[in-house]
């Protein structure tokens, strides 16, 4: 009986694990799908350009220049 009970619980837990794994898999695949779209490349490089301009205009760039 107990075997059967535990077996049942294990089966239920296994089912939950499968559900969680299934949800995680679908999230990853959506991100991977988005990474393959042209919009991702545009957003990534646009973001890098803006971040680079902010860095070059910031005082950090002044600190990277030696004051000799």
């Amino acid at each position, binding site marked *: 009986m107990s075997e059967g009970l535990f077996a049942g619980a294990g089966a239920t837990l296994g089912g939950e694990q499968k559900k969680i794994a299934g949800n995680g898999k679908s999230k990853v695949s959506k991100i991977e799908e988005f990474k393959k779209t*042209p919009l991702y*490349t*545009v957003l*990534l*490089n*646009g973001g*890098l*350009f803006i971040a*680079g*301009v902010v*860095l*070059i*205009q910031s005082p950090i*760039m*002044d600190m*990277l*220049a*030696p004051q*000799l």
Partner: protein
Amino acid sequence: MSQPVSLKSVNVIPDPNTSTEVSNGFWSSNPISSFFIDTYKQIHSHRLSLELINPGTVENLNKEVSRDVFLSQYFFTGFKADLNKAFALNPAFQTSHTFSIGSQNLPSYAFSALFADDNLFIQGNVDNDKSLSGRLNYGWNKKNISKINLQLSNDQPSMCQLEQDYQGSDFSLNFKSLNPSFANSRNIFTGVAVGSLLQSVTPQLALGLELLYSRAQPSAPADAGVSYLARYVSSKKDWVFSGQLQANGALVASFWRKVLPSVEAGIETNLQAGMTPITDPVLGAPVGIQPTVEGSTTIGAKYEYRQSVYRGSISSNGKVACFLERKVLPTLSILFCGEIDQFKNESKLGCGLQFETAGNEELLMMQQGLDKDGNPLQAPPQPTEI
């Protein structure tokens, strides 16, 4: 008492029947032409009131980043030695021998010579692969420059480029043609023709267009495209933004800043749109096309001192590169460049020596920091020595 009138004075009196007066009168009295003349005068006076300046050429739209800060123009692999000899400064005449080992791009030996004076610039290169290239620039005046580029190579097709630059007070015009030819049975233009205009809209902002027309064969259909250009220079001229939307689907944005007189930084983003065919996974036959965008962003900095120049860059493609040039003697410089591609696990390395020798005694004295009488030269203020 009346004064005697000389014949000269009589001749000065305007004659209403002269051709100039008649033509001026016709153009000014004609309502259509007078409208255009008045409109042109109003636009011209408005342009003068804007105090616009020449925006530079389309070729140099993002020169500060791509040519000055980035090291792609200077990068080489393997080992090379440059032997440069200057024979005269004005007019300048200089020859150069370049020896190279272990490089994929540089020939084993190349010889080049250049001559330049106020109006004329001639440069010629020949290498051991029997490749010959030459460039001639002639300035008719300060605004008009004609350019000819020639390239004759053993492996590649020959190239001839004719170019005309016109620099107005607030605009730049450029026309160039690559391998132009009418020598075919139908007398149709073949080759590439490019016309570009860059116009200052405000003292800081310039907008431009570039038109491209190409036809490879008389029987093949011609291609045409338009590129859009923009350049913004800050009021202090310490930063520049430029953007290009090219006819081939590329978008290039660049930003440059002069941090200190000896330090410059720049960033450039390149997005290239295109189409790739979709193939059936089973049959392998094309079933359609899908839009693709490839992009890369590179950020770099240049440190320039009296005896050394350092350039470094990092790219979103995983490439980290540097180029160092150090003058160890007045006549000898050492070059070092390296690049690591982190994503592909590849690296490139280049080392070089550059010898500068003088072709006459005066230049030799100048290399030593002395004038022709042996007195120390009064050099202009230079960046800090490192």
